């Protein structure tokens, strides 16, 4: 059923439809509206769950971890510094193979302090061992959140649903919210075989010696690789119920014969799509929106890039001293193709900088000028900075 909803509100409603038993929350902009909305749902009796308003993100992640370990479906959300404060716990959750869903309302990481959107936070914890799914719009945020619980519980892996802060979380738009029956049909009741249970008292989180550590890591790695199938399956099952395509591992739009491809993740995709459409036949391009960043869908990516002469990777984070994060991984993945496209890599929209409709033409201009063959920040405007005085 359609509603005009703010992104955070929609995510909260989606979470609520998944019947979490424990929600832990700590305020941080721009994630706050999600837990505020969940709190309101609990206060209004719409959602029956234990809402734990903790004293830090570190504890938010820990409470959620404890709750899942004890056999309850749990949820939490955070952003930026919060994600980093909980990063130790994030690694732990994944290593323990705890099925938990977390929304990351993406935001830049301080310093310098910025409350605005980019994806540096989730990128910083990309090696924590979580499944990471990026949402292009709020409809995807709803659908991905619902799918995330099933993927997590099926794979015994945590899922981080990445939603651009403000750009999505604070945008009101018309959204289709599934009804409870649809979600119940899609998402089985929570069960976790390795839960803490006096009837079968397992010990969780043991010390693992060098003798066994490598195998445990490999098991975890393999579980993430295997999760691609679960992601695709969840998407197609949800499509059957909801009628909406959420994109699976990645979404490919545009003419098959386009020579230029643009790969991005998150909310830039919508603006780009309109921008490409505006250009019409003058400058056709294939838009590839990466949804699953972990596991990294190498094969799907290669399939999506077949026939491209050039691929522009556009991302909202960077690895200082190295360059693009996604770009580097895409280069590695496509390097084994017979005719790999030439790859251009740009960061854009850091710290909340608006990505305008002109982005597409800017990109085309930039690569025409030879920028981005390595890595460049697209929307750099150093001229406006005040002169340094010594």
């Amino acid at each position, binding site marked *: 059923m359609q509603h005009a909803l703010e992104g955070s509100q929609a995510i909260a409603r989606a979470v609520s439809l998944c019947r979490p038993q424990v929600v832990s929350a700590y305020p941080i902009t721009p994630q706050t509206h999600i837990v505020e909305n969940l709190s309101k749902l609990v206060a209004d009796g719409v959602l029956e769950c234990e809402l734990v308003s903790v004293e830090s993100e570190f504890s938010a992640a820990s409470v959620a971890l404890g709750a899942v370990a004890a056999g309850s479906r749990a949820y939490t959300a955070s952003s930026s510094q919060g994600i980093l404060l909980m990063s130790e716990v994030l690694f732990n959750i994944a290593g323990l*193979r705890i099925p938990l869903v977390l929304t990351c309302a993406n935001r830049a990481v301080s310093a310098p302090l910025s409350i605005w959107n980019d994806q540096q936070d989730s990128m910083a914890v990309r090696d924590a061992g979580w499944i990471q799914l990026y949402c292009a719009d709020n409809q995807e945020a709803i659908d991905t959140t619902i799918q995330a619980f099933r993927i997590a519980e099926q794979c015994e892996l945590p899922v981080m649903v990445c939603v651009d802060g403000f750009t999505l979380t604070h945008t009101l738009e018309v959204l289709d919210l599934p009804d409870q029956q649809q979600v119940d049909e899609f998402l089985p009741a929570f069960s976790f075989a*390795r839960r803490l249970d006096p009837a079968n*008292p*397992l*010990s*969780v989180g043991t010390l693992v010696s060098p003798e066994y550590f490598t195998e*445990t890591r490999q*098991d975890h790695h393999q579980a993430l690789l295997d999760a691609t199938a679960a992601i695709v399956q969840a998407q197609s099952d949800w499509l059957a119920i909801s009628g909406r395509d959420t994109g699976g591992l990645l979404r490919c739009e545009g003419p098959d014969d386009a020579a230029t491809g643009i790969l991005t993740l998150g909310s830039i995709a919508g603006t780009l799509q309109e921008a490409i459409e505006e250009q019409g036949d003058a400058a056709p391009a294939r838009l590839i929106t990466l949804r699953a960043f972990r596991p990294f869908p190498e094969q799907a990516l290669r399939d999506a890039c077949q026939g491209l002469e050039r691929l522009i990777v556009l991302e909202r984070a960077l690895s200082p001293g190295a360059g693009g994060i996604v770009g580097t991984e895409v280069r590695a993945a496509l390097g084994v193709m017979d005719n790999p496209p030439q790859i251009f890599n740009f960061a854009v929209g850091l710290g909340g900088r608006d990505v305008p409709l002109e982005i597409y033409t800017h990109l085309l201009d930039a690569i025409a000028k030879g920028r981005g063959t390595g890595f460049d920040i697209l929307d750099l405007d150093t001229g406006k900075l005040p002169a340094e005085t010594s």
Partner: protein
Amino acid sequence: MGVKITRGSFARPGTSLQFDTGSWRVQRPDHLHAAAPCHSACPAGEDAQAWLALVEEERFREAWENLITANPLPAITGRVCHHPCETACNRGGYDEAIAIHHVERFLGDMALQEGWAYPQVQVPDTAPEIAVVGSGPAGCSAAYHLAQRGYRVQLFEALPVAGGLLRSAIPPYRLPSKVVENELDRLLANGIRFMPGQRLGRDFSLEELQASFSAVFLGVGTQRSREWSIDGATPRDLHVGLSLLKEWMDVGVIPCWSSVAIVGAGNTAIDLARVLKLAGVPEVHIISHKAIPGPGVPAQDAMPAILREIEQGLEEGVTIHEHRGVQRLILRGEQVVGLELVHMKKLADANGRLKRVAFEGTESMLHVEQVIPAIGQVVDPDGIRALLGQRSYFRVDDWGQFPDQPKLFSGGDARGDRGTVSEAVGDGRRAALAIDHMLREEAGEVPENKTTPIPLEQLNLNYYEPAPRPEVQLLDVAKRSGFDEIESGLTHKQATGEGQRCFSCGNCLACDNCWTLCPDVAVLKTQDVAADGSHYVFDYGYCKGCGLCARECPSGYIVMRDEV
């Protein structure tokens, strides 16, 4: 369970049991039953700690049965014993010693009241027969222990009734005759052939006994008083202490003098002094070479009489002159009118030998109507002169065996180095053990546990609460007649309380400390008492040998030994 434990480092419960931490150990704990001081000190050989444990649990019959494996006469010794067990009791070093003596009487009295019998022993007619001469405590004990070990026993007594000095020398305010009667009735009913009115040297000879019995035990006591004189002077109307006491016990009257001095420091002296005092003699003096026992008084300088009796005597008005000797008798004609006393003390001479020294210038006069020596008794040589030779007492070994006379034994006062009922009971038991050992033709020493008692330092006193020793009711001095018993027994609650107070030195208390405090969960509690007498076993598969259990065992029952 279908759970993959390789995921995220999960482990199944209690699987650490796969890991053998016992290999870490360089020392291992072990149970060691050390003797309790009360046990080591008991002249009768009782394991008081063992029966106190049963008393605590109100298993009185079992406690009594444990007790009578050593001493068949607890109602008697529970009244007259000088209880060295209490002196030895480790609890004395903490607050107050356990009132073992009172609990012994409690059990003895309960047994009489309830009519508990000794364990039945089937004695075949073909069993070896042993002659026991004298039915005092030594003879009765020997007869009992022999009977309990399956021997036929004939018990010869010169008098018409059994009991020896139990009936003739211990005043009824200490030991009521009914108690003696009941204890001895039970004892004699226990497969012993009692032969009253049979006097050695008159009705039968030692040689006859030796010819017709497999072994002979002489529990003849000391029936003859020592000669007494001061520089050769002896009063004409001399009364000897023990005879006077016997007379009073038999007839119930005693000469009524106005003042009496008793010379001696033993139980006879005190008993007589008290009897005289209670009979109305206004002035009763005891002249003692030694001091009243108390703190700072070395054992060899203390009066041998039981302290409790001394204290009660003083309470009743007896005057004791400590460290005093009689230097001269003041006679009017052959009648005593007084004594010249002098301060005396035993001091070491140049060779380190103790010698009695009188201090010149400390002389004093004591005017009395009568002086009574109570300086001890010797064996009556009638019928055994050959055995005695020139000595006053028998010379026998620890087990009561005569040298060169393998089938002849003795014990009790007749040994000369004894002086108490409990020692006599112990002698009878030990002689019975030795006779049994001999007749069974067993090799080596007579088996008996002779372990060193565990000292207080080896106990962990942190686990014991301070608790006072119970007081028994005493008859008011004004109401004491000499015939009514002065001390009452313990109450039920007091007796079990003493069981609780017992430290259980050197023995497993079953307190759970080792089980509770093992960081390695390597001590297991057993449902029944384990083979080694404890209630726990060490699981050496996991014990790392830290020694905590040994350190925290309250009763010193666990020791650490090096692994070999």
